[in-house]
């Protein structure tokens, strides 16, 4: 181990990428900095205001859900011929956002990308909260959420059994698996940090609560051994989930034969879109959080730049998907496919299609420019634009494909009602509220993993 704690930041900057943790930190300063946010006695005023606002928006969601259950799904705008609209758009949008969290925590761990360390914790939290928001939509779209357990293969006296040939059933399993694995992965990663908080807590109640969450962690060699094994296995399990969940979501559409839905490229293109939207959301969260809590030393420009590069790459795959859809619509020589694209280009929703192209294809090309990637304000703006673009993409795919399919006699228009909007906005409030609770009570950056990437922790071992 080297005792050289001071590293000249200008050293070798040409060959070395920017550091993943700013120089000058020690084991103690890292622990102090992160733990104090969760253990601090005084709740900052900004937190109270932010939490209050998001709580009120969350209440809008609760009110909508109450009214929805009392009245029925007829309060939503979807009706023949557009049977799927905001409920599915928002499901896909939220699930997609969650993907970046799993990608960061599992795939980047397996690829030994140490820069993931400071962002994986809150990216995983974001995954969980996004999945929670996503799950609400199909759950309430069933109309009778209290009978949702019918979707599981539970033997019952009514002789009911799930229709396993339906992709909607695959969704039930894909999403519930994803939610459980993500939750377990997140919690296991938290155990050593909960123990740190337990040991540092001053208040009795905090000691008890964090103590229970730490599950008796003592930091012994055996604990660490088991921990590392479990974490790696879970990372291995979570990796295929990054791909499978959104692929199954895409099967909801592709297994049908609606023009605009039935395209073989959908599975990888949906996955790329999910990663795209997810990284946009991670950036949208990371940028303000590092600022407000003064975490610029831990979430450095290197993180923001790497994420913007992943965003650019996944965005290009999404653009490739649009291109192949358009080319194939013509190449297929199928009149319905051909009309589907013409309807997107020039139909009643053409304005939204071109907005989507601007948001998802044109604006993100700015990320090729280095100066642009180095500007935090621009990264934040482009992330917001991509989030909007990815929402519009699902709008174009779902209702716009449904509103004009084969028979002109059964065409119709779709417009969302105020309840569609209040449900959607309400879930944003729910998501933000959960995030506020998370940053206040849970160490939002993994303390012990940050300590391992300090230069002091580097152990040179002989082979």
């Amino acid at each position: 181990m080297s005792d050289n704690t001071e590293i000249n930041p200008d050293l070798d900057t040409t060959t070395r990428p920017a550091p993943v943790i700013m120089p000058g930190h020690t084991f103690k300063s890292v622990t102090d900095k992160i733990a104090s946010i969760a253990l601090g006695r005084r709740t900052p005023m900004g937190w109270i205001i932010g939490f209050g606002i998001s709580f009120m928006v969350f209440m809008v969601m609760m009110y909508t859900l109450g009214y929805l259950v009392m009245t029925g799904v007829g309060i939503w705008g979807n009706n023949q011929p557009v049977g799927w609209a905001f409920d599915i758009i928002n499901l896909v949008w939220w699930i997609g956002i969650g993907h970046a969290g799993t990608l960061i925590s599992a795939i980047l761990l397996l690829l030994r990308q140490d820069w993931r360390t400071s962002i994986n914790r809150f990216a995983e939290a974001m995954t969980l909260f996004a999945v929670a928001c996503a799950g609400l939509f199909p759950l309430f779209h069933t109309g009778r959420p209290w009978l949702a357990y019918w979707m599981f293969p539970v033997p019952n006296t009514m002789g009911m059994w799930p229709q396993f040939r339906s992709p909607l059933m695959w969704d039930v399993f894909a999403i519930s698996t994803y939610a459980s694995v993500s939750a377990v992965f997140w919690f296991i990663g938290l155990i050593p940090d909960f123990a740190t908080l337990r040991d540092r807590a001053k208040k009795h109640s905090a000691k008890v609560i964090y103590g229970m969450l730490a599950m008796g962690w003592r930091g012994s060699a055996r604990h660490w051994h088991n921990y590392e094994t479990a974490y790696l296995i879970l990372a291995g399990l979570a990796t295929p989930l990054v791909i499978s969940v959104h692929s199954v979501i895409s099967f909801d559409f592709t297994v049908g034969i609606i023009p605009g839905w039935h395209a073989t490229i959908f599975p990888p293109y949906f996955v790329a879109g999910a990663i795209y939207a997810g990284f946009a959301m991670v950036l949208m969260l990371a940028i303000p959080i590092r600022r407000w809590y003064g975490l610029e030393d831990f979430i450095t420009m290197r993180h923001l730049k790497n994420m913007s590069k992943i965003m650019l790459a996944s965005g290009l795959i999404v653009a490739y998907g649009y291109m192949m859809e358009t080319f194939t619509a013509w190449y297929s020589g199928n009149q319905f496919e051909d009309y589907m694209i013409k309807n997107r280009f020039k139909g009643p929703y053409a304005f939204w299609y071109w907005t989507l192209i601007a948001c998802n294809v044109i604006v993100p090309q700015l990320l090729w420019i280095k100066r642009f990637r180095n500007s935090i304000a621009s990264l934040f703006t482009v992330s917001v634009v991509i989030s909007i673009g990815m929402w519009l993409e699902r709008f174009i795919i779902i209702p716009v494909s449904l509103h004009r399919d084969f028979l002109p006699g059964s065409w119709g228009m779709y417009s969302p009602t105020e309840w569609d909007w209040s449900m959607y906005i309400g879930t944003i409030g729910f998501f933000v509220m959960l995030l506020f609770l998370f940053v206040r009570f849970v160490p939002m950056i993994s303390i012990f993993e940050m300590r391992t990437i300090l230069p002091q922790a580097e152990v040179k071992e002989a082979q």
Partner: protein
Amino acid sequence: MSEITAIAPPELDRFRQRALYTGIIALLACGVGAVYDRQQFFRSYLLAFVFWIGIALGCFAILMVQHLSGGAWGLVIRRVLEGATRTFPLLLLLFIPLLFGMTGLYTWAQPQAAQNPLLQHKAPYLNVTFFIARAAFYFAVWLAVSFFLNRWSAEQDRTREESVTRRMQNISGPGLLLYGLTTTFASIDWVMSLEPEWFSTIFGMLFMGGQAISAMSFVIAVVVLLASTKPMSDILAPRHLHDLGKLLLAFIMIWAYFSFSQFLIIYAGNLPEEITWYVHRLRGPWRYIGLGLVIFHFALPFLLLLSRDLKRSGRWLATLAVAVLVMRLVDLFWLMAPDFHEGTFHLHWMDLALPLGLGGVWLWFFASQLKSRPILPLGDPALAEAISAHEGH
């Protein structure tokens, strides 16, 4: 660093000669075959060409990924990848004979296509002039980008300058984009349009996934072969092989994922214009080849590559890689040959002889290219760390 004498081993010369002789003999036999069955010659020739250019294109893509991502695995195989990309001039030469067989290969290039309204609709894209123009464009892109990557890599050896490394990184981003676009349309032109009524939006990606497997298997086989003698035997460590094996596993999974997605979607939709393609491939003996792909192109290599010991053993990994490479040829055969016979099974001796013939010539050319440069990128700033005994990352 300086004690490394990274000169290609003399064994490479023997390999080169053998490859060339095998290639020439096989090609002569096929030349005789062409006299008797000209149409079959071109069919087998297309199969062989698509197989070998797949390796070169896959290496081209992995080379650029490696410039962008870094990592020790990329440095030990860099010269093999570069050697494969320097075969594009030869591949361009090998492409030219196909132009003489186009009317036999592609129904859209035949005069009776004018009677088919669907092919009339596609004629602005599927016509001989535009086909050749596009192929010229693809080759121009591949030749240009690979030219600069190779030139700068040689410059890096000499000057060891930082700016050269950055230049290679800068060209790799746009280069990958161009690779994706050109390979997609090349896959549509050369393979998908063999059954011109059929279409699938994922086809380009599926094709690129296959190329990645071909290239990674090829590279593994080559580095393990090189490691049988000095200097590579001192350098190639189990951890490098471990990473290469993991990448091969990942590519195999991606390929299986694309293939399964395409199959499931078309199967579930069951639309006449799409399902016909699978009907041709799932009838008679074709079905067993398809099933063989599931087992030997995916399931078996997948399970074997999960083993850490196998990935770290050069001999085992290389054996598996060669087997996977053979399955790549079977996969391409299954993708292409059923279109020529409306789904009835047909295997001609030239389907084996021509891949061997073109492969012999291609391998000879590749080995000459490999030999012409140090076996490691000596000027790369990350090389010392990549080949040090220290198990770091």
